[in-house]
């Protein structure tokens, strides 16, 4: 009897010990889990959203109209202005990127918008000419003071095969001609901070910030309301070279024009 009782007690003790071990293990892993999850949740709370916009500005949305004619006096109306963008990357660079010096971006942090995006810049409005390209969530907070992107050939859609496709009509001295300007040239732009009415790229806890890829078509066509000997007009083609009799598309090289900007700030491109 005593021996049976002893054996029962031993069995109970063994079960209790086993339960105790199990409980200890659960507690251990729970502690580890809680230790891990709380800092992660805290880190995630330091994230916000970052939107990327493409902007052809008023000259694309409204067209080159008097007094903002092309440098050679043409009025331009745009039907479509497709730009195809990829490798869009926002950087927290340190030191801030100097586009005039060019070279590689020294980024402390970077976030990239995946995919190839073809955007029609004419879809903006006069009040807000910028067109949303995409948005990232879960972006670590900080000041994204640098942006880089590549203009690449579209793989589908109306601009397929082109990095830039501009269609519309031009008017001068009562003559109206349609035009189609294309480029299959690929070009990478590396830009510093947005230069404009507001500073951009400040991502805070739970907030929405934006960055802009600005396209200056006055660097292609020039402006009649600027001196002809200005740096921009000297480099711009004007519209005359595109006003041939043939209806074949006119081809331009992106590397020959300073198209990509950040607001009024210039970009390094190659």
């Amino acid at each position, binding site marked *: 009897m005593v021996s049976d009782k002893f054996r029962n007690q031993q069995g109970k003790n063994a079960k209790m010990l086993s339960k105790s071990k199990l409980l200890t293990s659960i507690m251990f*892993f729970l502690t*580890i889990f809680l*230790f*891990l999850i709380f*800092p*992660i949740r805290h*880190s*995630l709370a*330091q*994230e916000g959203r970052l939107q990327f916009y493409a902007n052809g500005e008023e000259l694309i949305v409204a067209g080159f109209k008097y007094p903002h004619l092309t440098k050679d006096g043409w009025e331009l109306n745009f039907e479509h202005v497709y730009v195809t963008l990829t490798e869009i990357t926002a950087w*927290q*660079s*340190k*030191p*801030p990127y100097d586009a*005039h010096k060019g070279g590689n971006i*020294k*980024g*402390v*942090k*970077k*976030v*990239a918008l*995946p995919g190839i995006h073809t955007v029609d810049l004419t879809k903006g409005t006069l009040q807000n000419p910028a067109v949303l390209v995409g948005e*990232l*969530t*879960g*972006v*670590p907070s900080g*000041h994204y003071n640098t942006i880089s992107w590549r203009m690449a050939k579209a793989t589908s859609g109306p601009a397929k095969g082109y990095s830039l496709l501009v269609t519309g009509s031009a008017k001068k001295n009562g003559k109206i001609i349609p035009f189609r300007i294309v480029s299959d040239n690929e070009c990478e732009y590396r830009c*510093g*901070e947005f*230069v*404009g009415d*507001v*500073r951009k790229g*400040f991502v805070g806890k739970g907030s929405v910030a934006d960055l802009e890829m600005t396209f*200056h078509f*006055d660097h292609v066509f020039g402006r009649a309301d*600027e001196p002809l000997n200005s*740096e*921009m007009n000297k480099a711009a083609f004007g519209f005359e070279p595109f006003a041939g009799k043939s209806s074949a598309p006119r081809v331009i090289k992106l590397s020959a024009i300073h198209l990509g900007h950040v*607001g*009024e*700030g*210039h970009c390094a491109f190659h």
Partner: protein
Amino acid sequence: MALFLINSPLFLENAQGHGANIQYQRCEGIEITSLYDSGTPMAGARVLIFAPDKPEVAQLEGITDEEGKFRFFLDSSQEGVWSVQTRLAGHGAMAYIPIGNSGENGEGKSSVAVPSAKARASLSTTQRLLMVLVILWGCLGTALFFSRKKN
């Protein structure tokens, strides 16, 4: 470029006998010169100056002179990187002025934070080390379980 302005003490008297005096202190100033790529001065450009503690709102505003120059004083108690923007007729630029030790531009280490991998990007070294330890603990436990002696 550092600029030191020193005004000399000056005593004036007028008919009413009201005295006036000017006190002076040395201040460190900044002079910027804004140029087009061609080297032409950006005369009449709008200047905005942003302090390190409120980088989204301009603390000072001004206009460049005919040589593209603008002079201003910084609150040197605000250490960090001061940002200066100049804009004129579709052209503009930013400059960054480090003030004090905390404002010195260092060479940042590059690291990639991919938003689609939020949790991974947010893990600290300690958390990663703990995760490795937990995995090792699990492996050890599994190994001991299979290597135990069966009674």
